């Protein structure tokens, strides 16, 4: 099995994707809503609205979805969305978790693809189902229990990828704030590698640590961060996929920035 992500490839650039589509050597997945997909999409793309995946993201169920999209262990997969890469990241991470490592993110969003006037169509491709094996990768998943014990360790960095205001109001104790917006540039879903490395190094996020990312509820923003970290060579990263929503529901401790009514500065 090829391991592109392990070799450091996190995103697929526009030009490469266009030639892979011409060569029919890629399965493109569009993670937008069905209506949007039906209007137009990148040629040959199949639709997997994130909600469909989240409605039951048990490994067995996701495996069925993969099979129905014609993905086997050898298929090269590129995922895109129109939500700065966060939804695409959640899908890519799930595939990776199931043992499919040849999955990358399109470097840009569908809006940007359209604004560049690149090809799109409304054809829905016919797919031959395939068989993917299940090879779970628990090393990239953090559960609440795992997080609770891991975060006491010195070599673990917990990253909150929600917006700064959400973080100030409430977060998991010990987390540091790295808002998802920080990860992108104006037209790419992730910063260039050197840029990202410098930013993370400044924050003391280095490869000597195990990193766990989380966000608000379903692991999308933190999914993007998971790939951002990998793109900078930080591969010892786990996604706390159930994120802050579960943490609060479990009534685990939270912390806030005291003595300031910072929310009043957020121009409402």
């Amino acid at each position, binding site marked *: 099995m090829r391991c592109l992500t392990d070799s450091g490839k996190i995103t697929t650039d526009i030009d490469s994707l266009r030639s892979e589509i011409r060569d029919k050597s890629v399965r493109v997945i569009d993670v937008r809503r069905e209506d949007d997909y039906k209007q137009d999409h990148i040629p040959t793309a199949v639709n997997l609205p994130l909600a469909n995946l989240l409605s039951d993201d048990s490994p067995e169920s996701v495996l069925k979805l993969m099979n129905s999209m014609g993905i086997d262990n050898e298929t090269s997969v590129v995922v895109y969305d129109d939500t700065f890469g966060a939804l695409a990241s959640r899908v890519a991470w799930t595939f990776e978790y199931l043992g499919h490592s040849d999955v990358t993110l399109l470097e840009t969003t569908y809006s940007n693809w359209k604004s*560049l006037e690149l090809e799109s169509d409304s054809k829905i491709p016919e797919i031959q189902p395939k068989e993917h094996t299940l090879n779970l990768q628990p090393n990239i998943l953090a559960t609440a229990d795992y997080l609770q014990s891991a975060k006491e360790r010195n070599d673990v960095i917990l990253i909150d990828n929600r*917006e*700064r205001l959400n973080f100030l109001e409430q977060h998991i104790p010990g987390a540091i704030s790295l808002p998802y917006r920080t990860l992108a540039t104006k037209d790419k879903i992730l910063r260039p590698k050197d840029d990202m490395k410098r930013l993370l190094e*400044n924050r003391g996020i280095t490869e000597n640590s195990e990193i766990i990312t989380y966000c608000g509820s379903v692991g999308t923003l933190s999914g993007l961060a998971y790939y951002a970290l990998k793109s900078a060579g930080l591969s010892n990263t786990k996604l706390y996929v159930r994120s802050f929503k579960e943490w609060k529901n479990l009534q685990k401790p939270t912390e806030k920035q005291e003595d*300031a*009514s*910072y929310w009043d*500065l957020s*121009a*409402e």
Partner: protein
Amino acid sequence: MTVSNLKQSRPDTAKPKINWSRVEEADNFAKTVKLYRQGKYDEDSFRRFRLQHGAYGTRMTGDYAMVRIKIPAGEIYPNQLEKISQLSEQFSIGSAHFSTRENIQLHWVVLEDVSEIFRGLTEVGLTSREACGNTIRNVMCSPLSGVCPDEEFDSTPYALATARFFLRNPMVQNLPRKFKFNFTCCEKHGMVRMVDVGLIPQIREVDGTTQRGFKIFLGGGLGNKSFVGYQLEEFTPEEDLVYTSMAVLRIFDRLGDRKNMARNRMRYLVNDMGWEKFQNLVLKERAIVRATQSVITQLEVIHTPNEIKRPIRITDESGTSITDGYARWLKTNTVKQKQANYRSIFITLEAGDITASQLNALADLIRDFSSEGKARFGFVQNVALRYVHEDDLPRLYSNLLESGLAKSGALTMTAPIGCSGTTSCNLALTNSHRLAKEIQRKLLELKFDEDDDLSDSSIKISGCPNSCGQHGIATIGFFGGGGRVGKDMYANYQMSLGGRSDGDTMLGLTCLRVPAKRVIPVILKIIEIFKQNKKSDDTLQSWIHRVVNNNEDTEIKSINDIKKVLEPLTIPPTKEEDPDFYLDYGDDTSYHTKTGKGECAA
């Protein structure tokens, strides 16, 4: 070429003329933060370094900073606004804050991310260098300079040249205290007597030739103790501008108090020494400076005129229907320029707050409506689009409405100033920021912006005695403190009346203490007694001016008489009667005063 390079961006009508930034300062800052975290840089030196680069501390935490971006002369370009928008989403709280000194601030920035903001700013030529610390702060200029019907000439190029001359200049890297320059257009638009150096452009005829120069005011300033500045001489010719500035700075550097942080602004030096002595020293020092320059030092004043070009309509839906509220907005937010057919339009922001998406919208509006292709920050946490053709005003108004930037009353008393207060400042005692918003909402609801009697008055609020909200020059000014009933505390403001910053500059006189939750009723009561006692051509400002100077002949003769009328409104209820009284605005827990160490004087 790859497809990614093909994307067409919207052409900018104007690009910044001056690059204020230096990318190596970003690297250096990042490196220094690391050394500091490793304990290799002591606390005090690091703080000085951080402030010199424009990163201020944040309330009760060392992990966050506020980055104060300087906008010299208040001139800002669309691409710069877009960059600040992006940086606010990446590293701050998705909004930015306009200060009263033509800075724009990003709050709650992780200290380790500050260098990334610097890096982003270099892409658009902006800097926060020397926005804090004991150096020359942002050089201000009136938002109407260049378009004001009453000005003798446009002082903007001189403000920019002064900013450029002193930025990173070794002679101002370690002054006894911060130092501020304000350029203006005319007496009425003011603010020159409330600052270390204030300048009004002036033209003189000498033997049939006209000569440019300035009226220079020295030694004014607002703060814990405020002073009104003195005029140095009748006329200072333009070539003496730089020598005069240098002379004043050299005297301040040499004689300013470096020990007593509480009184080391230049205004104290002037006050202690006496104006005449100080004036003499400046004139002598100027002669020395002039005589000892090894080369002729002059400011690099860029006189190339700005290109004025009305933006081309791509889709011209002529005959835009006049929206509700347009007349009100036109009256209270726009002024005619000296250039025929053009107006300057002012955007008021609640206590200076603007969201990331509004910053982007503002950039588009400049491109689409301003014939000079840039905007100007104002003195009161606002921003002006100038050179808007009168025919374009209705369309501009409906665009402003869409972005939530069309609030009326920008040029009236209904647009109060509020510093950031307890929302982020270490020194603040009250949430002045939120109070300013509450007042604005209330006064607009009452349509006071349409009342001509109130248009030349102002309300300004500071969260502590230190005057960042400029309460001393407000018609009705407030600064925050704590009040107490038994062991229960409440947010309380000291109110002053009659302050102004125009040709009749004076500091407001103390009236009485007003609990935060009684400030709005008190303002309304003042307006009510004004209406009962005014003469037919009075404005609130002119009436209060007479009262505080004891020149009024009706039943309200003095500030004491006003105090008597207001006092019943300020009596604290018990906590049982009115628990809300004991909460500050924007807070749902019992009020208590809590401050950290200030850095203004660091």
